[in-house]
């Protein structure tokens, strides 16, 4: 046997041994479980399907890149139909079958319901579909993370934009008669006062209601320069805009995150032109420099992905980053440490999901950007730079 052959075989044996040892080491590392109460059916299914896809893809990308410090991330979802009792059932089921450190919840009500249990078990950090400002309290909700700005922050970002564009402008707030819809009302009043805006109209309607003629008459009397919708996905926003336009109002209309999906806004038709709103993430189609994560998403899915997808994706990478910080610090993966790991996220590069580096503040990430719908492009396009609330 020649020396070359011996050397080759020895190298091969060493490599094989190394690989086996490495694999053994990798398999020694415990999986990190991300449970999910996901609304794949029911009234919130339009978002749940996107959230699920976003989480699934981000988990795959994280695992393909070696997991979280060598720990494989395992995603265990359950459908909840957007019902609190089903969400709690899913939580109990998943936590009884797995050692769960990370969790995605589907609603504010679920977050509030499960919070005492999160505190009691002390094992899990939870994020979810809710941006409720009430949850942005690390003292009261130490194990909850909001993957973006709160609803109050969103309205604040829009008002900041309005104050820059037209100081002293008259602003209206139209919200749904739900917990989700009412969330930013008091905050909006305070922010308007602070920014010198005239919040001269606050209207509440049933979610999804279509007969808004009385409310539009109120709008006509108040003649606000801007109207912010909150607590809706689509209806009755088109009805409001359509009737206001037919009355000759030149009000600018705005929305918050859940009414900012590009396809959803596109469904409004011609009246969507100029519709503005706040979005904490880049859109699927955003062409930005240094956005490898957006490139990866587009390479994995060649069709448009919703804002819910981006929310699910962002939530996962943030929780994974928190877990990474805990492991790097050599600490045990548990609720308090994961929250510390989350708080340690400073100027984190999300690979283009958010346009600027991310720093967690309280339980949230108060960053967003104002977009405007361009009918000719059939796309939401940036109308402001990224706005960070301090």
């Amino acid at each position, binding site marked *: 046997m020649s020396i070359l052959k011996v050397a080759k075989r020895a190298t091969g044996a060493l490599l094989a041994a190394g690989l086996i040892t490495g694999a053994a080491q990798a398999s020694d590392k415990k999986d990190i479980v991300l449970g999910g109460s996901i609304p794949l059916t029911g009234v919130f299914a339009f978002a749940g399907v996107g959230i699920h896809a976003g989480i699934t893809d981000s988990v795959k990308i994280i695992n393909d890149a070696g997991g979280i410090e060598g720990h494989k991330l395992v995603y265990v979802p359950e459908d909840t139909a957007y019902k609190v009792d089903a969400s709690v059932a899913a939580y*109990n089921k998943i*936590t009884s079958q797995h050692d769960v450190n990370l969790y995605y919840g589907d609603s504010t009500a679920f977050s509030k319901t499960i919070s005492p249990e999160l505190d009691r078990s002390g094992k899990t950090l939870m994020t979810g579909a809710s941006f409720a400002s009430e949850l942005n309290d690390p003292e009261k909700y130490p194990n909850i993370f909001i993957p973006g700005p709160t609803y109050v922050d969103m309205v604040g970002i829009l008002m900041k934009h309005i104050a820059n564009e037209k100081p002293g402008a008259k602003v209206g707030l139209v919200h749904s008669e739900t*917990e989700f819809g009412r969330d930013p009302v008091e905050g909006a009043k305070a922010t308007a006062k602070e920014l010198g805006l005239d919040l001269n109209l606050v209207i509440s309607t049933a979610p999804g209601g279509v007969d808004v003629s009385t409310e539009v008459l109120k709008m006509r009397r108040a003649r606000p320069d801007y109207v912010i919708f909150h607590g809706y996905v689509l209806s009755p926003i088109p009805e409001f805009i359509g009737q206001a336009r037919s009355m000759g109002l030149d009000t600018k209309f705005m929305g918050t995150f859940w009414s900012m999906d590009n396809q959803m806004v596109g469904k409004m038709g011609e009246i969507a032109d100029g519709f503005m709103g706040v979005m904490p993430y880049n859109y699927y189609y955003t062409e930005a420099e240094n956005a490898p994560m957006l490139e990866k998403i587009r390479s994995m899915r060649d069709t448009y992905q919703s804002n819910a997808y981006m929310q699910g994706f962002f939530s996962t990478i943030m929780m994974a980053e928190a877990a990474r910080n805990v492991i790097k610090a050599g600490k045990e993966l548990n609720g308090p440490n994961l929250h510390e790991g989350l708080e340690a996220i400073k100027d984190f590069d999300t690979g283009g999901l958010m346009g600027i580096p991310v720093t967690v503040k309280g339980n949230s990430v108060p960053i967003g950007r104002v977009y405007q719908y361009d009918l000719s492009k059939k796309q939401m396009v940036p109308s402001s730079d990224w706005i960070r609330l301090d």
Partner: protein
Amino acid sequence: MRIGTVKESYIADAALFDTKVQRGWMFALLAGLLLLPFFTGQYASYLVCLVLINIVSTAGLNILTGFTGLVSLGQAAFMGVGAYTVALMEIKLGTPFLLNLLVAGGLAAVIGIVVGLPSLRVKGLYLAIATIAASVILHFVFANWTSVTGGVSGLSMPPASLFGFEFIQPDQVYWIIMPITVIMLFGAANLFRTRIGRAFIAIRDRDISAEVLGIRLLRYKLLSFAISSFYAGVAGGLWAYFFRVVTPESFPLTMSIFFLAAIIVGGMGSILGSVLGAVFMTMVPEVLKMMVGVLSPIWPDAVAVMSPVRIIVFGGLIIIFLIFEPDGLAEIWRNIRRFFHLWPFKT
């Protein structure tokens, strides 16, 4: 074949359990309920508690709709009244949970009487609409009486406690929910061995004839509303202790439809039907979820793809049951029993 069940007295004929076999099964069931938490995990305990709460509320609605013939779509709102009462008493007064539950039931009963007033003039769908209106008003109160109900954010409450022991986990709250459910079911079953229960049935079968027989419609219709709402109030109170957060969105109109569907699927005018209907409506979606979960190891995206199919299957199952047995699951159960009673002869 079962023989030797001759009854020699009216009391024996009206007994809830008229054979030794029945009493044996009931004893086994109670023993099973006592031992259950020792052999199940938190998930199973959670589901059992949820089923038991739904059984209480379904039994209440069955008293009103199944036995008295008065359709109501306000059951969830009455549960809301009970839940808020318990939450407020627990937060503000810290009174014992049993007292809180009784007051919750009592207050829901009083509101039930008020809501039941239109039943003297209207029946059927008209009454259903009246109860929906009451439900909307109650939801408005829950959402807007902020100083008391916490508005749309609702109330977060401490757990039930007894001699310093806190009932937090599902397998702990079970010891509150299970005995109360058993007592309330026995109460409901016994109700129809009394003059009141028989008056309800007479009103359901023909209210004019009932009145001719001397049954005062005003009193008994409102009593039926009160008892039904009492059950809903207690169920709502148990719900509050179970979840410890009460918001206006906790008790939507769809929840009332859920209970109405439960008594139709289980069997109208049957306490057993209430139990079977609540079990079916609560557990079938979970069982279907488990079946989807089984596919997950071989089909990773099964949860996303099969979830809508699961809902269709659930709806289809309800329709199939109603087509093949309009009298509900209770009748299927009775047919099975009859088969074994007469076996080896044909029914």
